């Protein structure tokens, strides 16, 4: 496995999961827009933020399990196969 820069496995899975969580991402972005002009400092988008990251996390753990079942071993197959979580 002669790889120059091993890719972080978790980041890779999170990138792959972004399309699955577009709804939560849009909701978060809508919230950001809503509170844009807020001066009071009390408004925040933690709820939507948590919804988004909960979706990403769930998708990642599902992906890990899928990868294990399909591959029969713990290997995330990038084109360069540099991301093996030993």
């Amino acid at each position, binding site marked *: 496995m002669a790889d120059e820069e091993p890719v972080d496995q978790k980041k890779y899975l999170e990138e792959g999961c972004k399309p699955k969580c577009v709804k939560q991402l849009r909701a978060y972005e809508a919230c950001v827009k809503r509170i844009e002009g807020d001066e009071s400092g009390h408004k925040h988008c*933690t709820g939507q933020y948590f919804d988004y990251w909960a979706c990403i996390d769930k998708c990642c753990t599902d992906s890990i399990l899928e990868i294990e079942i399909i591959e029969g071993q713990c290997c995330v197959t990038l084109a360069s196969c540099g991301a093996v*979580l030993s």
Partner: protein
Amino acid sequence: MRTVALLGAGISGFLGFATIASADESEHGLEAPNYPWPHSGILSSYDHASIRRGHQVYQQVCASCHSMSLISFRDLVGVAYTEEETKTMAAEIEVVDGPNDEGEMFTRPGKLSDRFPQPYANEAAARFANGGAYPPDLSLITKARHNGQNYVFALLTGYHDPPAGVTIREGLHYNPYFPGGAIAMPKMLIDGALEYEDGTPATEAQMGKDVVTFLSWAAEPEMEERKLMGFKWIFLLSLALLQAAYYRRLRWSVLKSRRLVLDVVN
């Protein structure tokens, strides 16, 4: 008149709480997902190569702030290192011992029987060096936190930018998994931060997985023996249950198959 006064007192008491800060989702932190740990199964053992790497991560990244005062060097023998390796590792640290025959304390190189070295002399020193926050002892951390293994992994690898509207003061960092969201520890696991002895690429996720496996072992070193014992005894006791059930029914069959006749006295 009195009821009105009581009602008024009640309402003003209740309104007194109106200005207290309200809680939100960040109060309990984002829930950690359930990762498929290789040692999760009913008969699954620890990945000992992972424990060895995890100890390396702890030593190089975490030990400068976090103590593990319940673990001794000898605990590592046969689990992650050989006896010679552990002795060499222990001898690298200086331990205060004594008193000697002259009544003085002296320092000597570490032995297998010594506990892991403490980064700070006491909690006050630890707080002083870390802006008032105490880096907790990690000996039992995966048992001391709800959903410990998943929580620690999510925490270590989950440093993200804060959501819009949330500001974290200077000296703290945002972590969605930490209750309240503002944690004193900065992100410590960076890709390539250390070079593993066995050549495994040291990505953030890899180091997180290894260190959590190490911490799980540290908190529950008896896990493998417990699972073996549990499997054996649950099997044997199930057989014993079947035998006991049969024997009870055998002995009771006499009573359960008797006939009682009620006759009328004429």
